[in-house]
């Protein structure tokens, strides 16, 4: 398919995006949350094995395009910025499809003194103002409860064998190459059975993920099997990810190193750990929660777009391999 010079998004969609951005800025201005900018290109990068960064060079040194502005924003928080938000273009390699574009717009913000439930409240407040027509269905369910309800299994206790049996019991045909990776099986059941069970025409917050999927969230202070992380969905579509942020530098360093260990096992590239972030955590990150929302997907919901390229002005840069 050859490319056209025209935008892939309608002028109407482009205007709607401008309206959303204005409305987001007004929302945070009213709540005294400061808008900030941080570097897109950085010498350190995310280690998460599920995320691939684009890379580039400067002076024969390798640099990476950020997959989210999280690390630099945390350095601002540690430096005493107070509550901050950012509307950033972010980049993720190998993510292309109906709901994925390798370059997309992320809204990310941090609130000191908030736990993840208070931040979910604020996400809901923001969305109530943004969504037009209004959507009034906002549900919350814990990761554990969702698995118990749909699959009669406790995701914090089940081993790989139990998860496989569960998939077989509910007639979920499993892809090849899953091996004995517990999180992969959880993700698989999540995609096949849990997400499809969410309200089709409303928002669902799924919270308190297994500790093995904590990413940058702290573990629950009463139950270390779970992490204070949440995701937001509309139907099956994932829109946001939030953390009650981990502030322990040693624990964070351990997780980064473990990520790289997994990368090595899977023959992925090892990523340079962000020592500046670790130093910032050592110097003291305020007790806070943070969340990132995919703005293009929000726009898809508002205008009823079926493909993400319908809401990105020129969404066909990577389209050669897409459908």
């Amino acid at each position: 398919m050859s490319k056209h010079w025209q935008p892939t998004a309608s002028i109407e969609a482009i205007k709607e995006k401008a309206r959303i951005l204005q409305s987001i800025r007004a929302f945070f201005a009213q709540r005294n949350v400061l808008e900030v900018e941080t570097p897109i290109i950085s010498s350190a990068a995310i280690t998460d094995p599920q995320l691939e960064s684009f890379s580039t060079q400067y002076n024969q040194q390798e640099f990476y395009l950020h997959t989210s502005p999280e690390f630099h924003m945390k350095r601002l928080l540690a430096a005493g910025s107070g509550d901050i938000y950012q509307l950033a273009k972010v980049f993720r390699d190998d993510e292309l499809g109906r709901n994925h574009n390798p370059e997309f717009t992320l809204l990310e913000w941090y609130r000191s003194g908030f736990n993840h439930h208070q931040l979910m409240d604020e996400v809901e407040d923001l969305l109530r103002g943004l969504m037009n027509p209004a959507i009034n269905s906002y549900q919350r369910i814990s990761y554990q409860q969702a698995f118990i309800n749909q699959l009669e299994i406790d995701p914090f206790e089940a081993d790989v064998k139990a998860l496989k049996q569960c998939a077989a019991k509910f007639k979920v045909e499993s892809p090849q190459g899953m091996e004995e990776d517990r999180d992969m099986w959880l993700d698989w059941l999540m995609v096949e059975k849990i997400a499809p069970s969410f309200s089709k025409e409303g928002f669902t917050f799924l919270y308190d993920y297994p500790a093995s999927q904590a990413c940058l969230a702290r573990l629950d202070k009463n139950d270390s099997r779970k992490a204070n992380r949440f995701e937001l969905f509309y139907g099956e579509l994932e829109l946001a990810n939030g953390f009650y942020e981990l502030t322990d530098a040693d624990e964070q360093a351990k997780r980064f190193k473990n990520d790289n260990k997994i990368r090595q096992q899977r023959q992925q590239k090892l990523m340079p750990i962000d020592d500046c972030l670790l130093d910032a955590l050592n110097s003291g990150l305020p007790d806070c929660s943070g969340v990132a929302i995919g703005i293009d997907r929000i726009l898809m919901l508002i205008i009823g777009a079926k493909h993400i390229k319908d809401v990105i002005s020129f969404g066909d840069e990577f389209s050669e391999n897409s459908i």
Partner: protein
Amino acid sequence: MASYSTNDFRGGLKLILDNDPCSIIENELVKPGKGQAFNRVKLRNLKTGRVLERTFKSGESVEAADVIDVDMEFSYNDGEFWYFMDPNTFEQVAAPDSAMIDSGKWIKAQELCTVTLWDGSPLVVTAPNFVELAVTETDPGLKGDTAQGGTKPATLESGAVVKVPLFIEEGELLKIDTRSGEYVSRVKS
């Protein structure tokens, strides 16, 4: 053996699944938030014509189907097989009814079709997007009724029955879109 990674998946890509050649109809990347990505794929089994759904762990490789598309001329149908000839090499192939799917009813002799070959034997025959066929049977046309809506059935020389505007007469040559099975226009002779 050639293979494709899930990153190569796109519409029309031909794979081997359970020993049968399949063609990708739809490919969707699904990711449970920050976790493992999967490709949810809708495919057509090119031997049976059946549509199936499969999910792959992203990054996995799948065996490529060694199929080629060749433009071939339709010769004749003997009731069992449909015979096609490569106009360059004069090589002939016989396609079973199952390979014709919907194409048989749109083609007449000499029509240039796309024949998908797997190990040399025809898997699928695709009619041209547009064909020109004469009307062999239809109710008499209504004089002067060239602007009004309303349709009637017409049988074409290939045997297909399509809905046509009321003013169409027997013997007229029509342009048909084989993908939708719809009448497009009259062809001036």
